[in-house]
């Protein structure tokens, strides 16, 4: 307990996820000789890259207190529009822009119904889930369209050899470490509130953590050239951008504030409707882009492309510590959760465990990751020591307190 008080970040959701990630990686290494192989590590991302793209924006949507169930259908629709236009003889460039326009239209529709007509997003996007998929079926019927130009498919399929992505990877690593430091110390208050700068050293555990991270990154760097597809690097960049938007901009702050207390945000003069509209448009555009990447990866599109992706995407976001009621969660958590889920899936896939069982394991992890800290907290509450004068207010505790009142 003393340790937990000394290092509050130890109690954070992200720390828990990091521990789970380490455990998952350790188990994977010990169970399969093929796991720690750069091609496989690249595959971890490659095989789920479209879901990963959408996860980034879904996190914003859920933090904002909404949900978007239509993403998988928007992916299917954009891929189908691409295929339809391309089949008709349009150039791929114009087909891509039509596909993105279709995504934009879906986003505007979702956003309009949710933000301006005040219909719950669950209802709107559930109807969208059916209708957008239907639109895709109208376009492609039972046809399958392929033979996209080489440059398009190679974007998702070919390994990148240039060293610029490697540099990007360094950047990702640096910023990741920077964020960890930023998140786990009181740097934030110091910067934001102009309080006395009390930079707390990460402490031994934090140092070990950062060293491990750095070591892994260096190792990956040494091997990464020629292993990862371009889409993976695009994902890295988009991850950084969304992390930046959510964690460091005013818009990001609005997302949290509105998700926490919509009425309050309105009274405070925030443009709630515009923010919600923007988020739904972002979500649909990202889904449309992910749909294009899916088309590039499988090289051939039918109207059923990406069907059923939505639950996986939402699972990853929720495991990342984003509360379904909005207002809490960080991009670091979502990123870690993505790594946890993808690594677990990959490890189980290497042991030839079937889809159903894999989904069960991840489902159990999802429940336990909230349940066990809750239990720990309950037990802690009965310990006399913590009952007397423990006034640590931590994000994780806040989150749980919020959730317990809201579920109860």
């Amino acid at each position: 307990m003393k340790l937990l008080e000394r290092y509050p970040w130890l109690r954070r959701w992200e720390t828990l996820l990091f521990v789970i990630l380490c455990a998952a990686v350790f188990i994977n290494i010990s169970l399969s000789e093929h796991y720690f192989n750069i091609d496989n590590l690249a595959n971890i991302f490659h095989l789920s890259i479209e879901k990963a793209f959408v996860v980034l924006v879904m996190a914003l949507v859920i933090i904002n207190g909404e949900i978007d169930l239509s993403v998988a259908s928007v992916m299917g629709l954009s891929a189908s529009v691409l295929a339809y236009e391309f089949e008709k003889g349009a150039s791929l460039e114009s087909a891509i822009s039509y596909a993105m326009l279709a995504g934009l239209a879906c986003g505007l529709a979702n956003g309009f119904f949710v933000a301006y007509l005040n219909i719950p997003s669950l209802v709107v996007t559930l109807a969208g889930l059916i209708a957008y998929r239907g639109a895709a079926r109208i376009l492609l019927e039972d046809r399958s369209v392929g033979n996209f130009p080489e440059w398009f498919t190679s974007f998702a399929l070919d390994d990148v050899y240039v060293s610029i992505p490697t540099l990007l990877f360094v950047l990702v690593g640096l910023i990741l470490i920077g964020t960890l430091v930023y998140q786990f110390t009181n740097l934030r208050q110091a910067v934001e509130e102009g309080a006395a700068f009390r930079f707390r050293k990460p402490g031994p555990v934090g140092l070990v953590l950062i060293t491990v991270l750095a070591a892994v990154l260096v190792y990956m760097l040494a091997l990464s050239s020629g292993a990862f597809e371009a889409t993976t690097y695009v994902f890295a960049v988009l991850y950084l951008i969304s992390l930046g938007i959510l964690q460091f901009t005013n818009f990001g702050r609005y997302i949290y504030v509105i998700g926490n207390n919509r009425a309050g945000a309105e009274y405070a003069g925030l443009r709630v409707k515009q923010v919600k509209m923007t988020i739904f448009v972002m979500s649909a555009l990202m889904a449309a882009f992910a749909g294009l990447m899916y088309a590039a990866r499988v090289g051939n599109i039918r109207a059923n492309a990406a069907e059923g992706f939505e639950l996986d995407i939402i699972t990853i976001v929720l495991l990342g510590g984003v509360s379904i009621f909005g207002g809490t969660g960080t991009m670091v958590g979502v990123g870690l959760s993505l790594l946890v889920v993808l690594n677990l899936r990959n490890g189980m896939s290497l042991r030839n465990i079937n889809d159903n069982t894999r989904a069960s394991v991840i489902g159990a992890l999802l429940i336990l990751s909230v349940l066990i800290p809750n239990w720990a907290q309950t037990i802690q509450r009965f310990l006399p020591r913590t009952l007397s004068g423990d006034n640590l207010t931590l994000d994780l505790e806040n989150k749980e307190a919020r959730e317990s009142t809201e579920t109860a």
Partner: protein
Amino acid sequence: MNKLRFLILVTVILAVILPGVSAQDGDPIVAEPGQELNMVLLPKTLGNAVFDQAHEGAMEAHEELENPGELIFNAPTPDNAIPGQIEIIESAITQEVDAIMISANDYEQLLPSTQSAMEAGITVVTWDSPVAPEGEALFIAQVDFDETGQVMADMALSILGEEGGEFAILSATPDASNQNAWIEALQTVLEEDDTYEALELVDIVYGNDDPDDSYNEALGLIDSYPDLQLIMAPTTVGIAAAAKAMFDEGLCSEIAVSGLGLPAEMQEFTELGCAPQFALWSFTDLGYLTYYVTYLLATGAMEAEEGVTFEAGRMGTYTIEADPTREDALRVLMGPFSVYTEENIDEWAMDEEEMDEEEGEGDEEGEMEEEATEESDAG
């Protein structure tokens, strides 16, 4: 269209006489048991009884060939069908297996993965449902796809009788490539052969291989077409759901159900008269044959070339041939259809039950009734 008819004829003839031809060419290639191969059997989805039968057949061959390696059986769930298959193939490449046997969910979308598997030196064989030729060594065709149309037309004719009548098709999903090919073959037969003039195909609907949807679509058909006399469902899920719908509505005496079905699932409906006739090939045999072919290819005993003859254990001799339905593609044609009626459904269902219990030890499958071949010869 004459060309197509000719092709059908050639195929049928080839299917019947090829074993004899190859015997003249020299001795068929025989597998040498005991070589270590890790193999993946990858059907379309989990939870479909026919694929479990294929698994049993493959396990039978696995034991027979005393392969000390592993036979991995894995498939995606239906809501993750194509990405799931891609993932399993990629994982198989990482695990450096020796061969993958795929029943593909899509003709083209799996290509990038199967091609990279082939580049990695893995033998890729498709069965039940192929991928494009550049992504496979060869395809084990359960039956000739054109023959499926013929068999369905024959069943429709024998159920409806000489005076014919209206019938409709209840298929799987609108983009299911196997079903679409079969339906197309059926339509060709109906158009070109005067024997089937009296049969009128009024509609094609899709139950998405979901029992509930198929049930509703079947009822929708009888509501929309008051004179409908037959529902033809070329999918095991659809035929069972349609038969159940007719049974529930007490319409078995008026509207018959036929198509492709599993004897064990259909036995009761056939005995009650809801599904007087239906057909299927043996998925156990398909799994067995697929395993044999893959084993021969992966051990290097056989090359995937046209005209090569080999022996597949208890199932006898087969020859690799050009696939008449796809360009530049090779196939091994298993065949034949078994047509099930009230007379023979009993023993079939019983056989299958024993198979379930003995984990694929029974090999009565070998003595197959060849009704379908006779029928198609006649047609």
